[in-house]
């Protein structure tokens, strides 16, 4: 359980870090929180020749903005920064709720928001947040910065639009201002485990009728899925249990649920319905 030897570089500026990864190419890896990469290295599932540690790079962490304007998250912002977000409102409430489901307290002190997205575990909570809310990712390379929508960023299990010469630097989440209610429900066998199924939603309800809806699920396919058809169905419906059950059934029918050693497809499809109903009910409460 010891990693293979590697060379270690610790740049202090983004320009320096970009120059290094561009020079090293495929043999190098960026080290952020290390909470996914280092276990993989200890198992020797990953054997990078060089690690470029971005923990000392200035200006990569921090949260700015608020629920009404949307927020901007530095890629190196630790999960734990969302235990008590530095802003209030529906978006803050949602992120504070979600973060408690990511791994454990000590892992949240090191793991980073950008690391989670770059790693792209199908059951990552932050991947679900960005896919469902429609985040914009800012990706830097020596040739400049490009913007990629979350919908185009995630390509499959542990696979993203990132090139070896690129660093994810910032993530923008759109506003969820006054009037929005949020819900999140995840099922995992033990506290801190990756979810077998989870659902995240935001609803804007007026006089008992749903006016706007966001709904996404994670842990059930090769990436987090935003359920656009179910969102469209929800708009105009009364915000009550029957609507939520119909939405859950619709999602169950439309998703080709994944199967692995942790859960078979039937069981997971059943869980999928439950997490969607519970997340929607919470958002409407």
């Amino acid at each position, binding site marked *: 359980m*010891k990693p293979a*030897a590697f060379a270690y570089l610790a740049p202090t500026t983004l320009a320096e870090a970009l120059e290094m990864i561009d020079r090293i190419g495929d043999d190098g890896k960026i080290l952020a929180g290390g909470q996914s990469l280092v276990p993989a290295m200890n198992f020797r599932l990953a054997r990078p020749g060089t690690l470029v*540690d971005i923990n000392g790079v200035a200006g990569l962490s921090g949260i700015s903005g608020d629920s009404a304007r949307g927020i901007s998250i530095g890629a190196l912002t630790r999960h734990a920064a969302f235990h008590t977000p530095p802003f209030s409102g529906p978006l803050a409430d949602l992120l504070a709720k979600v973060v408690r489901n990511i*791994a454990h307290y*000590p892992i949240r002190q*090191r793991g980073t928001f950008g690391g989670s997205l770059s790693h792209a575990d199908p059951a990552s909570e932050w991947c679900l947040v960005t896919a469902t809310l429609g985040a914009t990712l800012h990706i830097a390379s020596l040739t400049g910065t490009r913007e990629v929508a979350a919908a185009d960023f995630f390509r499959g299990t542990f696979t993203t639009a990132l090139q070896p010469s690129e660093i994810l630097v910032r993530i923008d989440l759109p506003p969820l201002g006054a009037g929005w209610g949020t819900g999140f429900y995840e099922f995992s066998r033990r506290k801190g485990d990756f979810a077998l199924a989870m659902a995240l939603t935001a609803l804007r309800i007026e006089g008992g009728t749903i006016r706007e809806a966001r709904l996404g699920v994670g842990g059930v396919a090769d990436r987090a899925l935003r359920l656009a058809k179910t969102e469209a169905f929800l708009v105009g419906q009364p915000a009550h249990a029957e609507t939520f059950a119909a939405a859950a059934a619709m999602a169950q029918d439309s998703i080709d649920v994944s199967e692995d050693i942790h859960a078979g497809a039937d069981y997971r499809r059943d869980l999928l319905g439950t997490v969607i109903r519970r997340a929607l009910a919470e958002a409407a409460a």
Partner: protein
Amino acid sequence: MSDKIKITLTVNGTAMTAEVEPRRSLADMLRDDLRLTGTHLGCEHGVCGACTVLVDGKPVRSCLMFGVQANGASVRTVEGLADGDRLHPLQQAFWENHGLQCGFCTPGFLMLAAGALEENPDMTDEEIRDVLSSNLCRCTGYQNIVKAVRLAAEVMKAGPAPQATRS
């Protein structure tokens, strides 16, 4: 390729230097290079928490950090908890409440609880249980660990903060 790198850090309040290969985990550096074997290693992939130490005040898995990443940091380990012969309130409470049996997981639980209580001295029972769910114990059944941490939290709030918890 993997030449040793010289780093300086503070461990339990004492300035130290180490010369380590980049692949050396912080846990192995503490144990093998700095001869502080109180930090234990169980799984070496982030699951068990036996290796938990405080880095700049925060509890982290020392099996998932490289020693070279602790350059310039302040690290606290279980060896730094007691003040001479006087046990830290957490150690005292674990002892009095049967919070350990074999003791393998204990250094990790102590440092986890020490860090969490420093961040929030007023944790609710639910918060204590949530934080303690980070680490694994194969002996105690957890109840006495929860009890010990709850009682230590009260002692720590009531009494003057013991010197040994500062570095």
